[in-house]
């Protein structure tokens, strides 16, 4: 979907393919009186929008209301990540995360809604916690594309509405495309990640030497991989060079990963970690977990399909 590469590149390795469907079949099921709906691969946002649409009888072209339902869905689709979980804003002051409250949407027929949470729970619902979730996994905010509607996130208005309550309004939507997204899963080889921890003094330098030794060993063994990645956890694994000088770090973890189509080569790599404890740079520990595990990779191939070729069917079980 993003690269334009044809599916034939992986066709013989495909394990499954699921079209993301929208709110229609869920609304249909609710209309037939279902109390519980078991769907195929629905979009996360349709799970929230569909019952609201059913309740208020919104039509398939009520673009602004449908978009509002989608935004409500986006806000609560990661559970407590909108009600205090993983919230950077004023994180120290967020109360009782051990009993964090999951979010609730109080929807109104005009498409406005309030996000809140149960009383006597931890966490927080505020303009800031909601804003952080709104920008999570966001692409082009003008076009949040779903099977039902395209929501414009630049029209969302947030306002405090009392303690742990945020009023959401102003949302505009427009007609969707004639495609559905398809999630294709395919076999993509094997990987393994090994780690060792080096202690002060010169922890980073020792880990860097271990990295060079390990690469030379793999080279001498004639092992070839599609990808080798070494990271220095505690120094630069997440923030790279932006973290600045870490030569005085108390400890640094060498995290060494390989990926390739040859399972035997990946397997052989996993036997090269433990010997480094006795044969490599000093002050090393953290190998008690044993040999790294070889994992088969099932990778994701997003694609588009014409809506017209995907038919949904609702069965009611009495």
């Amino acid at each position: 979907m993003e690269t334009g590469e044809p599916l034939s590149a992986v066709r013989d390795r495909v394990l499954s393919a699921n079209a993301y469907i929208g709110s229609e079949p869920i609304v249909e099921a609710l209309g037939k009186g279902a109390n519980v709906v078991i769907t195929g691969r629905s979009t996360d946002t349709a799970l929230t929008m569909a019952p609201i649409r059913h309740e208020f009888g919104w039509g398939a072209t009520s673009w602004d209301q449908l978009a509002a339902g989608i935004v409500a869905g986006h806000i609560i689709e990661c559970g407590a990540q909108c009600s205090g979980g993983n919230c950077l804003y004023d994180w120290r002051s967020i109360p009782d995360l051990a009993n964090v409250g999951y979010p609730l949407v109080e929807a109104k027929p005009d498409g406005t809604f309030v996000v809140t949470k149960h009383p006597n729970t931890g966490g927080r619902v505020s303009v800031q916690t909601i804003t952080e979730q709104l920008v999570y996994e966001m692409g082009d905010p003008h076009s949040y594309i779903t099977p039902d509607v395209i929501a414009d996130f630049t029209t969302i208005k947030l306002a405090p509405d009392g303690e742990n309550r945020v009023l959401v309004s102003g949302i505009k939507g427009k007609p969707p495309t004639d495609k559905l997204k398809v999630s294709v899963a395919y076999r993509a080889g094997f990987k393994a990640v090994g780690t060792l921890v080096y202690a002060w003094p010169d922890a980073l330098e020792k880990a860097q030497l271990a990295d060079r030794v390990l690469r030379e060993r793999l080279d001498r063994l004639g092992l070839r991989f599609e990808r080798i990645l070494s990271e220095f956890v505690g120094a630069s694994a997440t923030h790279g060079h932006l973290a600045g000088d870490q030569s005085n770090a108390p400890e640094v973890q060498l995290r060494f990963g390989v990926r390739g189509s040859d399972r035997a080569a990946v397997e052989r790599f996993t036997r090269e970690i433990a010997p480094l404890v006795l044969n490599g740079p000093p002050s090393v520990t953290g190998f008690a977990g044993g040999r790294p595990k070889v994992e088969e990779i099932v990778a994701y191939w997003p694609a588009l399909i014409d809506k017209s070729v995907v038919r949904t069917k609702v069965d009611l079980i009495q």
Partner: protein
Amino acid sequence: MKVRLVDIAHARSGDKGDTANVGVIALEPRWYSVLDEFVTRSRVADHFRGMIDGDVDRFELPNLNALNFLLHGALDGGGTLSLKTDAQGKVFSTALLRMVIDVPDAEATRLQLPAAK
């Protein structure tokens, strides 16, 4: 005056395939204009040089006092293919907050911006 983003903004990031997104949000609504003016696409591309393989896109959300950046080629292939610790781009958010911008003194004073420590 030098201003560090972590003192004037909060952020959250996520992934879509091999792309990480970073939403950066002004701590005070009046500081959004500073983000808009100084945290440009090219400035962010420079900030992450060497950490990402692709381009940077920028989108404005003045309604949320936020900017959204897409960092392409940031996740070593992304998803299950990636060998990175941060394969889902969860903490590119705070990496962006390390950025130091240079705001003219008059503007910084008028907006009561905190100076970088």
